[in-house]
């Protein structure tokens, strides 16, 4: 690692926590104090800001898994495997929270907790793909084989990410596409709503980056433990 890289890492570690907390406070203030209540959906529309932020973190995380998987399959470097593992775990956390907040929003608005809308179904499949990725890692006895198989699964998740993005245009389900069109006069009509959404997405994106760094650190420790155990067995 070069001196400049190490300095950048230290600066990021110092700046990321206060930046995340500051952005989070600003997001909560905007959501609960500043932004106007949606005329059609009422206060429940405020769930939307955090729900969208979950998806930004989820898609970034799973995009990173795919990138790290490709790099691992190409270079076979353990660092790429660690990054993939860390991003998959966080992606699954944010995907679970995204599905849950969506379900809580759907009950008063659609009258049901869940519906087999194309985008929702594809998102559930996405959750299953990355749950399988993590399960595969924990079930395989050969770490290299587990990493390679999981990497193939990690890359294949990209297809589902693309389908989720196109689902609202191709299959016309009931899931709204609020960022690109206003449906039934709703959506992000007020400029303050758009500002709030951007701040909320930034706050959760920073939280994702912070947690990712911590999780990669834990993955490095795990690898060190395994390396030390091998050394102990060899010297016994």
């Amino acid at each position, binding site marked *: 690692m070069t001196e400049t890289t190490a300095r950048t890492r230290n600066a990021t570690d110092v700046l990321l926590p206060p930046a995340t907390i500051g952005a989070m406070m600003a997001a909560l203030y905007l959501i609960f104090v500043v932004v106007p209540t949606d005329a059609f959906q009422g206060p429940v529309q405020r769930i939307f800001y955090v729900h969208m932020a979950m998806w930004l973190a989820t898609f970034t995380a799973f995009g990173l898994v795919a990138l790290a998987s490709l790099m691992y399959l190409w270079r076979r470097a353990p660092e790429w495997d660690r990054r993939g593992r860390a991003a998959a775990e966080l992606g699954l956390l944010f995907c679970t929270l995204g599905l849950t907040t969506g379900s*809580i929003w759907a009950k008063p608005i659609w009258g049901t907790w869940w519906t087999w809308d194309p985008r929702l179904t594809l998102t559930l499949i996405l959750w299953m793909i990355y749950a399988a990725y993590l399960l595969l890692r924990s079930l395989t006895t050969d770490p290299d084989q587990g990493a390679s198989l999981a990497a193939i699964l990690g890359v294949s998740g990209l297809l589902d990410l693309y389908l989720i993005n196109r689902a609202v245009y191709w299959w016309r389900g009931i899931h709204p596409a609020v960022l690109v069109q206003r449906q039934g006069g709703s959506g992000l009509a007020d400029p303050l709503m758009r500002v709030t959404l951007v701040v909320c997405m930034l706050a959760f994106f920073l939280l994702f980056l912070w947690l990712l760094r911590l999780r990669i650190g834990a993955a490095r420790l795990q690898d060190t433990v395994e390396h030390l155990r091998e050394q102990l067995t060899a010297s016994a």
Partner: protein
Amino acid sequence: MHDAFLIAAYAVVWLGVLVYVTSLARRSRSLEREVRELRELLARRPPP
């Protein structure tokens, strides 16, 4: 009534993040302790 859904959604998010952060911190602490113990064990071993 709709306020209950709003509160539930934000509670789920913060509870989820809190549980994850707590479990990650616990895992990291346990791994750090294990690294320390394994290094001590290796240091005590006579060289081959």
